[in-house]
């Protein structure tokens, strides 16, 4: 799931400038799950906007805001309210914001900061496990990603800052390489230690990514 959080109200006020009438967009998927742009948050946003003297022309929660066609369709269904607005305030991840901006000529104001692709530890607690590098090494690292979990993304073992299995960048967190090592030992495999991993091919995640199922 894509983890996002709301921008501060001060920052939002600055982005809204003098726009008076706003149409709100939320997302029923990730932004709902991480309580940044679901039904409830859209409602609270509406209340806040009214309290600072703005008018809300309407709102919609899109099923998956990252679905470009669906986002466009949902906006068309609320055409009148959208037309009435000076701007759209979008409470979705950055991908969702762009579904909206590509479906409407109206000024789009993003209300969230998008953080990472996250696993859910428990409700309200998310952890990044994969940074979408395009060349997955998990099969050699006992299912623990060093690209993401190692603070330096090292591919050939721990740095000199590892201490008692903890990471130099944050002593509260386990060194990813220590975790990889422990699990490989348990599985009695050499895994990634059997070879020198060559430099990563970052060309595989050339920006912007494109993928087509054939």
């Amino acid at each position, binding site marked *: 799931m894509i983890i996002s959080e709301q921008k501060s109200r001060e920052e939002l006020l600055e982005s809204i400038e003098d726009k008076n009438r706003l149409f709100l967009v939320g997302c029923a998927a990730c932004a709902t799950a991480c309580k940044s742009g679901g039904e409830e948050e859209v409602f609270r946003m509406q209340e806040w906007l009214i309290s600072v003297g703005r008018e809300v022309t309407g709102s919609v929660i899109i099923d998956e805001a990252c679905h470009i066609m669906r986002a466009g369709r949902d906006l068309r269904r609320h055409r009148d309210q959208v037309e009435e607005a000076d701007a759209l305030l979008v409470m979705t991840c950055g991908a969702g914001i762009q579904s909206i901006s590509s479906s409407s000529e109206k000024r789009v104001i993003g209300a969230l900061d998008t953080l990472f692709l996250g696993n859910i530890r428990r409700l309200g607690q998310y952890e990044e496990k994969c940074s979408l590098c395009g060349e997955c090494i998990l099969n050699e690292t006992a299912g623990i990603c060093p690209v993401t979990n190692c*603070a*330096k*993304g*090292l*591919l*050939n*073992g*721990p*740095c*000199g*800052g*590892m*201490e*008692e*299995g903890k990471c*130099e*960048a*944050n002593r509260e967190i386990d060194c990813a*390489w*220590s975790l990889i*090592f422990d699990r490989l030992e348990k599985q009695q495999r050499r895994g990634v*230690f059997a070879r*020198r*991993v*060559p*430099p*990563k091919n*970052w060309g595989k995640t050339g920006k912007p990514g494109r993928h087509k199922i054939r």
Partner: protein
Amino acid sequence: MSRLARQLAEHQFTVTAEIAPPKGVDVRSALEHARSLKGVAAINVTDNQGANMRMSPMALAALLVREGVEPILQMTCRDRNRMALQSDLLGAAALGIENLLILSGDHVRFGDHPESRAVFDLDSVQFLEVVRKMEAGRDLAGRLLQGAPSFFAGAAVTPAAEPFELMFRKYRKKVDAGARFFQTQAFFDAEKLKRFMDEASSLGVPVMAGVLLVKSAGAARFINEHIPGVRVPDGIIGRLEKTVEPLEEGVAIARELVAAARDCCQGVHLMTLGHEDRIPDLLKG
């Protein structure tokens, strides 16, 4: 062949020290420091150490070469991608720099630019291999070089790191990737150093033990908090606390560590943090 390479090849007990480039363009005090370091084979020039932005170590190393002082150019993977690292290698060779110390680099969190984007396009093992590749006349992309560089490239190791076996696997990878000497992170436990050397000596790469001159208990606590991979043990802090002359005690402790290194290592790398004048005292006995 660099003096460092020659001394290690001749099995002399080899001594290196280090200086940091200035934060600014005034190199006078750095050069003075370097000139005052007597009896050392070569001097490390640190690379934005602790992730604090300073003058390019390549520039200072080149100035040392001009002064007739032999540098060991430290290069980290933190600030430059594979293209920048390779072009720096070519530049370093053209400037007469022979010794390299290849490092991952401290995390940006520790330094004065914690908001910067860390690079780590290569890790230290991959970087060592790039050095070897360039020495063989090709860049990482396999393109032919017009004139190949020739280096004496080393790497770092933390002998007291736990888990030991994990640290040692990385050490072995660095050896396999072409590291020709090692400087260790500052050590304080002679037993742990010996345990490491018992394993490491069979791989046949010279190891210079890192010895840090700790001048007071306060300095020790600062190091423990701010320098990754270095931990001054309580016993040493206790000794520094008890004495009325902590610097002298610090020198005595460092001298003991040098003596321990003489028993099992091929040299020492001295980190004297502004007390370069005490180096002869550390090497006594």
